[in-house]
């Protein structure tokens, strides 16, 4: 469904990604782990078109999307949950969700989608008129995830959704990812919390300083001695 092939991304002169390739199949959950500054967020931003890849190709459902403006990419069916659950703080919860359905593909279904989301996240329904900035960290993350569902995506990319949340809330987030997976969404999840992320993963990649250093299914990750000591804390 998504094929990233040997992309290089630069910030000015600084190269943040070097020849990164990865694949996400329909209905699959793929995770990318790596330390701070490895280029995980850059990878997601490049796929979405927020950063331009200097070389390489990005194909989504067989069509080249690298070089497209982000709003075009969103229209094709990719959505992103940004790092730190960045929501629009001065917009109400409801308006945040509505922005999620801005693209013309999603707009006609916005009302139905919103009702579904409110039944999935009753907390958000209770606060729908409240400004998003007044939500707690966990609620904000939930809102960011819910907002990404509003654009009728086929692939959802999540950037460290568990970052800075209490363990109980982290579990909630992963439960929810599990549920999205069951509903058939393809998921590309970036995480530092490799233990938790591997539990939902079908396939995993390890990125260090802008390069892919390892890939494999869950078992091969679990068994790799380097990953075990460096990322799984075993």
């Amino acid at each position, binding site marked *: 469904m998504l094929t990233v092939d040997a992309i290089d991304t630069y910030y000015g002169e600084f190269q943040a990604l070097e020849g990164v390739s990865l694949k996400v199949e329909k209905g699959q959950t793929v995770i990318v782990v790596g330390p701070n500054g490895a280029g995980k967020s850059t990878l997601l931003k490049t796929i979405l078109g927020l950063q331009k890849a200097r070389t390489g190709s990005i194909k989504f459902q067989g069509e080249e999307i690298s070089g497209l403006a*982000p709003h075009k990419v*969103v229209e094709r069916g990719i*959505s*992103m949950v940004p790092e730190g659950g960045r929501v*629009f703080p001065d917009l109400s919860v409801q*308006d945040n969700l509505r922005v999620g359905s*801005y693209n013309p593909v*999603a707009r006609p279904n916005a009302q139905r989608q919103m009702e579904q989301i409110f039944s999935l996240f009753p907390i958000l329904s209770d606060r729908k008129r409240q400004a998003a900035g007044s939500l707690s960290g966990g609620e904000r993350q939930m809102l960011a995830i819910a*907002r990404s569902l509003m654009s009728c995506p086929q692939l959802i990319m999540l950037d460290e959704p568990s970052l800075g949340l209490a363990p109980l809330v982290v579990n909630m987030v992963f439960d929810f990812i599990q549920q999205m997976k069951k509903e058939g969404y393809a998921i590309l999840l970036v995480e530092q919390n490799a233990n938790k992320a591997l539990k939902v993963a079908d396939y995993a990649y390890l990125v260090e300083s802008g390069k892919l250093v390892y890939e494999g299914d869950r078992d091969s990750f679990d068994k790799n001695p380097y990953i075990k000591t460096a990322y799984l804390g075993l």
Partner: protein
Amino acid sequence: MLEELLMAFINGILLGGVLALLAFGLNLIFGVVKIIHMAYGQFVMLGFYFIYYFHTAWHMPLLVAMAGGIVVMGLLGMLVQLLIINPLLNAPRLNQLLALASLIIVLENLAQVLWGADYRGIPISMPIIQFGDIFIRSSYLLAFLGAIATLGILYLFLHKTYFGLAIRSVAQDVEIAKGMGINPKVIYYITLAAGGALTGVVAAFFIPIYTVHPHFGASFTLMAFVIVVFGGMGNLMGGFISAFIIGVVTSITAVLTSTEVADILALVLFILMMMVRPQGILGAKA
């Protein structure tokens, strides 16, 4: 004397309504595009001239001429976005400021070349309303009511439409807005068009009140600045409230002393505000 002050107060409120509309446009552009539109008052001047020209040279009925002026100013707003703001979107703030300041030179002299340096106006006599000893010019009252109505429409546009929602989200966080499938360039064009059309609306309300000349806009640019800074840059509510404060303060000062002193007072308030409380009267401490 007391009647005079009371009248100055009322006129301040009435003019404050129009100033609120003017400041709203400047504020919206700042909030969304993060650009200080230095030539905003000059846009009002141009709008005035266009309405004047459509009415006197092309013999359009006044209301049609006004509508025409509003449309033309909206288009000019988009032209500014296309030719000046787009190429400078990632330039240092100061370059943006200077570019729009040079636009002032272009627009004022363009008006001078096209329409000459004389004062021009459309003579309309509107009745004066009397309440006891208080006289209110109906042209002011009309402008006030019209401005408030326009602000109401703008409020609904921002809060009840998808475009309005997109404008508000781009104002808060462009990058995330892009991730939501919003094309900020389109939003910038809409914002500049709305801001331009607003100057046309303000010009239309000014028709029965003022006459126009090429340097007519300068004082309105400054007035709008003062109001926007006083209310906190990008803070639409703050701008709305401070328009009335500034309107009343300058109007009363002008009656007690002279219009120059009133303008000086407004500018001094602006300078002090920028120094001591740049976030404006309503803003939270940064």
